[in-house]
């Protein structure tokens, strides 16, 4: 690709980019958020047309108008965000657009099985994508590309949602593909990974190529400097502020799958009947999304929950927020039982919430920033007084947040959608912190946020913790998790199966536990399952 330039209204996403990828290699592309990596790849994939520049494949000049053209030239792309239709089966998602290859029936199913077996993807063709976990979805995405017999694979941040073991498995696959002569372009923010798998590295900054690196000699530090011109900030936090006053106590929290209710939960039997009428009641057994989860978070404590996505984190958050009602269990906040309280009551009662999916749960995308500042705190000052909104005060406070949290925006009247992800996140953090929460749920607080903003968000959390905030931290970024938490727990299939000391644990060990391979208390460099007391636990246990 040569001299690629792409302008968006107000942004030059790519500016005269040049990149050469050798055949049969894994080529890594790195750069901070918004550097233009995805845009460049979308151009290569025909999803966007470059304003200037040329692309040559095998020395032959090409011009793609649609992804179809690119696919025809043997290019396949796994996108940063999943490109799957939830309500279609895996088979349908895979064959879509490539129906000419093997049809849409038995032949296609056979082919999918074949590829799946060859790379150990373990994909079930007739499952609905909706029912798949993230890792499975990732595999479907890869399968989509392989199915089309792509010769050039683009993987845009494929590892963001995977645990280390899954990453390793993916890398094995990549090496295998490489051995077969395929070319892979790989985008990641995780520099360690990049060094592990790449043959060549290109660094992009603000839309231009700023350099290349040799993975054999480069260090992550050098790469980071190339990327952002600064050191990698670290989430390390060592001075403990943990007190002995419990802020949040969760006992035996159990959540059943939506649409099903528990019949005899007191007997811990998992016999459940569907709420809706179906033909055969006994044929349908629901399952537990959270199973007897108990923990305590004290004032000034950050409890980190590690786990592969889809193991009950979402349900835990939603149950704590009151968005779903648990089948069993008691939640106590600062001495008050809030198990039956509404979401609003809980928020007023002092729960802050940084949601895992900011677009779905944190923002009104089409509303101005100041309305987003009111969201979730409409009953509280300065947003309203006795049922009437105080727009002036809300606006003024929004300006304060924008200032204090360094939200990059031309003003508070623009819609939330027009902010970049990082800035949206800063706004949410600022909002939640403005109401002096007693307890904060922070789900992936820095996901997809670039290094600068990351540090700010960490600082904000640490600051509040010092003042006695209790935090439940859920993150896929294990460094963040280990660095910030005072206590660590591992969630697996709806249960808290292990705990660990963040002072000694390594990401690799934690990753192992997340796959369910280990349980109990995790000792550093000794991850055999040490069966702990399953009965009542002491506060000591909680405070590690």
């Amino acid at each position, binding site marked *: 690709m040569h001299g690629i330039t792409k302008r968006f209204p107000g942004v030059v996403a790519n500016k005269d980019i040049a990149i050469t990828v050798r055949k049969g290699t894994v080529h890594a592309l790195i750069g901070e958020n918004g550097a233009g990596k995805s845009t460049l790849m979308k151009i290569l994939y025909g*999803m966007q047309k470059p304003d200037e520049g040329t692309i040559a494949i095998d020395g032959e000049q090409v011009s793609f108008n649609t*992804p179809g053209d690119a696919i025809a030239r043997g290019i396949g792309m796994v996108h940063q965000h*999943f*490109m799957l239709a939830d309500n279609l089966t895996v088979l349908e998602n895979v064959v*879509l657009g490539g129906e000419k290859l093997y049809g849409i029936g038995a032949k296609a199913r056979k082919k999918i099985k074949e590829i799946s077996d060859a790379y150990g993807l373990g994909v079930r063709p007739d499952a609905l994508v909706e029912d798949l976990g993230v890792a499975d979805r990732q595999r479907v995405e890869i399968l989509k590309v392989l199915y089309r017999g792509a010769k050039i694979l683009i993987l845009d941040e494929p590892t963001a949602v995977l645990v280390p073991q899954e990453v390793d498995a993916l890398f094995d696959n990549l090496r295998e593909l490489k051995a077969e002569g395929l070319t892979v372009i790989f985008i990641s923010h995780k520099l360690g990974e990049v060094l592990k798998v790449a043959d060549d590295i290109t660094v992009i900054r603000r839309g231009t190529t700023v350099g290349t690196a040799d993975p054999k000699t480069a260090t992550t530090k050098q790469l980071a400097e190339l990327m952002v011109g600064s050191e990698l900030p670290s989430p390390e936090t060592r001075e403990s502020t943990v007190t002995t006053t419990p802020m949040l106590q969760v006992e035996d929290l159990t959540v059943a799958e939506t649409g099903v209710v528990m*019949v005899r939960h007191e007997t811990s039997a998992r016999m459940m009947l569907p709420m809706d009428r179906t033909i*055969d009641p006994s044929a349908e057994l629901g*399952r*537990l999304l959270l199973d007897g989860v108990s923990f305590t978070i004290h004032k000034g404590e950050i409890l980190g929950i590690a786990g592969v996505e889809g193991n009950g984190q979402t349900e835990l958050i939603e149950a704590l927020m009151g968005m779903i009602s648990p089948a069993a269990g008691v939640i106590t906040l600062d001495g008050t039982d809030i198990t039956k309280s509404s979401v609003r009551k809980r928020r007023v009662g002092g729960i802050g919430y940084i949601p895992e999916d900011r677009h779905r749960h944190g923002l009104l995308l089409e509303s101005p920033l100041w309305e987003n500042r009111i969201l979730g705190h409409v009953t509280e000052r300065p947003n309203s007084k006795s049922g009437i909104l105080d727009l002036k005060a809300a606006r003024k406070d929004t300006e304060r947040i924008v200032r204090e949290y360094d939200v990059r925006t031309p003003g508070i009247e623009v819609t939330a959608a027009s902010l970049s992800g990082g800035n949206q996140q800063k706004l949410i953090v600022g909002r939640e912190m403005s109401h002096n929460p007693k307890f904060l749920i922070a789900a992936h607080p820095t996901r997809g946020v670039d290094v600068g903003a990351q540090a700010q968000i960490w600082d904000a959390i640490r600051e509040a913790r010092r003042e006695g905030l209790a935090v439940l931290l859920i993150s896929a970024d294990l460094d963040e998790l280990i660095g910030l938490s005072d206590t660590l727990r591992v969630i697996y299939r709806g249960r808290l199966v292990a705990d660990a000391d963040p002072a000694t644990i390594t990401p690799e060990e934690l990753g192992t536990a997340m796959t369910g391979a280990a349980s109990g208390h995790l000792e550093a460099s000794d991850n055999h399952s040490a069966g*702990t007391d399953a009965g009542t636990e002491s506060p000591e246990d909680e405070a590690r």
Partner: protein
Amino acid sequence: MSTSTVSATSAAPKKPGGRKKLTLPWIMLIVAGALALVSVVRLISGANDLTSVGQVSGALSLAVPIGLAGLGGLWAERSGVVNIGLEGMMILGTWFGAWAGYQWGPWTGVLVGIAGGAAGGLLHAIITVTFNVNHIVSGVAINILALGFTQYLSNFTFAEAPGGSSKQSPQVEPIYKVTVPGLSDWMADLQGKHWFFVSDLAGVIGGLVTEISLLTIVALLLIPATWWVLWRTSFGLRLRSCGENPIAAESLGVNVYKYKYIAVIVSGALAGLGGVYLSEVASPIYQEGQTGGRGYIGLAAMIFGNWMPGGMAMGAGLFGFIDSLKLRGGAENVHAMLLLIAILLVLVCVWQLYKKKYIQAGVAAVFAALLFLWYATTDSVPSQFVDAAPYLTTLLVLALSAQRLRMPKADGMPYRKGQGK
């Protein structure tokens, strides 16, 4: 808290929870059960018209226009475009069908009527797909426009034609009707015996083989055809993917605009065919206001049927059946329906009891008792309530049945090429 063991059964990996595919034998069994229930009611109440040949064919001809509109809605919404303009497209169908029909014969009328509806669909596609305007606004506008446009045109066309007026077209030649010889009579005979179940089945079959218009057959075939095209061909897969996740479809080289356009135009064409059916088969003339909200009912039937052709057909069929019952000797037939609903409520009550939901069971029981009482103490239903029967039944069925509606995920969402993240 940590547990030392992770029981293997603790949670199965993500499995399709709650949803169950209805297999063919199940569907057959449900249909047979429903028919048996109707049969029982017929025997008790003596309302023999409940499943007569005439009732079934009447139901069919009332259901077909609704079903065609619903099918039109299904095509559009499966591609992600909400089509509330079905009513307008139907109006275009009635008008153009009759206009061409009376001059050049019914089949030309069918084609021109379809084209008229398709033109409405095209307009909808331009507004919603190309200009990305809110789909409901566009649909409402098309309904207004189609009404005004056809009324306006009638002044220049039908008003001057012999036998026509500014509100009405001249007569259109009828479309050929077929009766399966032998079978039709045999079924009518069997039906006339008023036996349990057998006669009811004979009535249903008889209704399908007696005096059935070729256009009705076409309409009936369009339902499985739609299912086949949308669920069994790559064209259909692509079309549906546009309604589920157009950006994903785009990323695999699907030209989303093209499929949306095709779907919405087909949608208009189907609604247009529904219109032609009204102005050529249901009655041989165009008449202002003839569609009378059937486009909306079609939409409702589609939602009722969970955006699936079979379910939609059931919705339209239910509506046509009750509508026909009410028109053919309303007071008596609808009175018998009271009994049917009461029995259904008793079944609901038993089911809720089984599920230990005592409140729901109680409510169902009370309503069932009230209906029995009403049934027993009267021998007809006021004509006003008879009129409401199809609507009430639909509402009741929806309220009682499980709502596992699932509309296409990107239905009604704006889409622009190259905007995906």
